[in-house]
């Protein structure tokens, strides 16, 4: 009870000290709202083409203009939020579970566990990460599941490293020894005593990699891997509009690009804010 109160008070303090964190949080709520309800509130059907109104600049009817097939870009940007969000969140959850657990185990147990996990993440980091993601999607097939998988795999080393370092410093901590004395087995110590202490710092990592995951999913779609047209998705939409910029129809690529940028920006700011929130140095 008092802990919840003190967290709230601390959150208020962090936000008042750095209003940008508050702004990022508000933006996050907005994006989440659009992702949840976007398809029900958009003015036009994102898939309906209208040959009479192709390539129209932004207007009151079509706020972000229309594309080559006369589809409303505003509606498509809104609807795309959900797909990009789902890809980013599920890949982050996946990598959080895999990388987080592997990292904690390797930091806590050391020895062979550490060596195996360490070499796996070294191998992943030996590739240019985006090229690796391309390779995975190309090899496994062009599906949303595979984009999620590829995004998770390339983020794996980041999670392993954070979790490993955090678990390693707590491995011989007094409270861990005390937990052993209280009759906790090694796995129980890991899950019930070490994991809760690492959670906050992992949440920061989650927020920071969310932006990266969105960028990665959009990037894969941009080069034609992953989500297929006509599904609305920011990366594809930018790709579709890229050819038209030179002929003056800037709005087709600009607005989905802007949405992408804002989303990534929001998650990075949120990550910084969260870091302040959980940093014990700032809790005085």
């Amino acid at each position: 009870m008092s802990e919840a109160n003190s967290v709230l008070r601390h959150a208020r303090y962090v936000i008042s000290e750095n209003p940008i964190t508050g702004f990022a949080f508000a933006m996050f709520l907005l994006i989440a709202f659009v992702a949840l309800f976007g398809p029900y509130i958009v003015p036009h059907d994102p898939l309906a083409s209208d040959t009479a109104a192709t390539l129209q600049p932004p207007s009151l009817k079509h706020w972000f203009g229309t594309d080559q097939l006369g589809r409303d870009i505003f509606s498509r940007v809104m609807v795309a939020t959900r797909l990009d969000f789902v890809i980013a969140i599920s890949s982050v959850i996946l990598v959080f579970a895999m990388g987080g657990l592997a990292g904690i185990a390797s930091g806590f147990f050391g020895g062979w566990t550490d060596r195996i996990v360490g070499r796996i993440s070294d191998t992943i980091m030996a590739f240019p990460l985006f090229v690796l993601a391309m390779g995975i999607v190309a090899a496994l097939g062009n599906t949303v599941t595979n984009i999620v998988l590829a995004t998770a795999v390339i983020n794996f080393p980041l999670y392993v490293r954070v979790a490993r370092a955090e678990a390693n410093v707590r491995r011989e901590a007094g409270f861990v020894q005390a937990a052993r004395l209280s009759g906790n087995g090694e796995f129980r110590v890991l899950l019930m005593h070490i994991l809760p202490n690492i959670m906050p710092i992992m949440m920061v990592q989650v927020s920071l990699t969310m932006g990266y995951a969105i960028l990665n999913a959009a990037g894969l779609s941009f080069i034609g891997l992953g989500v297929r047209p006509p599904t609305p998705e920011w990366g594809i939409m930018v790709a579709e509009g890229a050819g038209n910029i030179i002929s003056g129809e800037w709005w087709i690529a600009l607005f989905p690009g802007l949405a992408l940028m804002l989303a990534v920006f929001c998650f990075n700011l949120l990550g910084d804010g969260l870091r302040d929130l959980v940093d014990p140095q700032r809790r005085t």
Partner: protein
Amino acid sequence: MAKRTRTKTGVGVARDVPVSMPLLEVRDLTVEFATRRGTVRAIEHVNVTVGKGETLGIVGESGSGKSVTSFAVMRILDRAGRIAKGSVVFSGVDLTTASDSDMRDLRGREMSMIFQNPRAALNPIRKIGRQIEDVLLQHAQVGNRDVGEHAIQMLEQVRIARPRERYHAYPFELSGGMCQRVVIALALACRPQLLIADEPTTGLDVTTQKAVMDLVVELTRERGMSSILITHDLGLAAAYCNRVVVMEKGRVVETAQAETIFSKPAHAYTRKLMRATPRPGVSLRDLLPEGDRPRVPAPKSSDTHRAGGTLLTVEKLVKEYPRKREVGLFTRMFGPKPPIEEEVFRAVDGISFSINRGESVGLVGESGCGKSTTSMMLMRLIDKSSGLIRFDGDDIGEIPARDFAKIALRKRIQMVFQDPTDSLNPRYTAARAIADPILRLGEAADRDDVRARCKELARRVGLPTELLDRFPHQLSGGQKARVGIARAIALKPDLVVLDEPTAALDVSVQAVVLNLLQDLKDSLGMSYLFVSHDLNVVRLLCDRVIVMRAGQIVEEGETKQVLSEPQTDYTRELLNAIPHPPV
């Protein structure tokens, strides 16, 4: 004080101040810290003077503002801190109004400081000789050519053996005591007039403490320097200071000559502090403030402790660690075979002893003597290399440490850890921490039952039950220690290992915790193995003492006998190194 040529003109500090004028005069100093909950006054109206050639001790418990005072003098308060009122006059210059560049010039050249953790004060990736040169060059004390020779001279003066060789050593290659000597060399390199030593020997062994303090006193006396010794240890202050200032909660409560403050302490707080300091010739109960004696005078345990027979037997216990050596594949295949004895390091080298039921045994030794390794093996947290650990008839040494957590014997051997903060999970409330062993090993019926037992344990250790739902960071050091003790006794163990349970606590809290431990032992009939480096504390609580050195037992016997008539030189040396307030 010889006149020396100075290549750099500094601030107008008179080098030869008249004797009547104090070197440092702190008048009505108030320091405020801006925190989230408004400004907090760390120290208020502090008046301190240090005369030329005088050694002043500032004594107080944690939070008394003794360090803040010295930081304010050096003007190295962190960003949130501010000198709100008062003046600090050093050799006729008011430091509170001096410019930052003047202060930089003064620090190190006219006044310097030794910190608590010598390792943290040294740059870990720079050779110690170079670090001394840096200070000398910074203040332009010597030319570029002779600077190396000067650095070596400094190392020689702080009694570092083979200074020419050690010049090239990195901090991690030196022991804690050696590092503190290097820090002293750094502080004294520019021949300052004032040296501030902030808990310079906390964390060092008693014999090292004595060596370091003797060195500081000798060097400062030789150079006619003034010094301020900040410490929580009244004995240390008494042994090395001319005058002592006692601080409590940011205020100076008493200032007096070292001898008088101990013979006739005027202020109630000083008396309380004096009382709580363990010293020869007092019993455990004497440490508590008057009128705060335990309700029932505890029976002297010496007549009860042999009743129950042997609880724990240790025979020829050995713990070996492999020495980490980088051996390349080539040397491994074709090189000469490395000598066998180099392969392992024996942290515990064949020790044998036993503990009776209801007895408390002290395990004493300096850092690295193997006492912690021994206790960890008895606790079954690490595996032994060879030997026998027999607990109440069972050979527990044969059970691997990683399986021991789950067997029934686990609840009969428990431990209280050295650092109360480190030993509590920051994410668990006090109640959850105490409940952990009950949930895992006890046979509690339901949540209410667990809760009830937590409350009972809290009452037992004197922890107010309303604090049970707090998290460790919301508790004080003494309260955290109580939580740790409650957790250890939750399952009514037969043997409790106390690993320096009061090392991180203030003396007054230590007095209370030691008394609590004695009460618990009397009422629950447990046996204690009290691991400590402090013979004065061991004397209070233990029936028998085992003195360890370099993995081996050097002396063992009844506490009274070992402390009054030590049989070995090593024990004698340990006893002599403890600073005592004059009786």
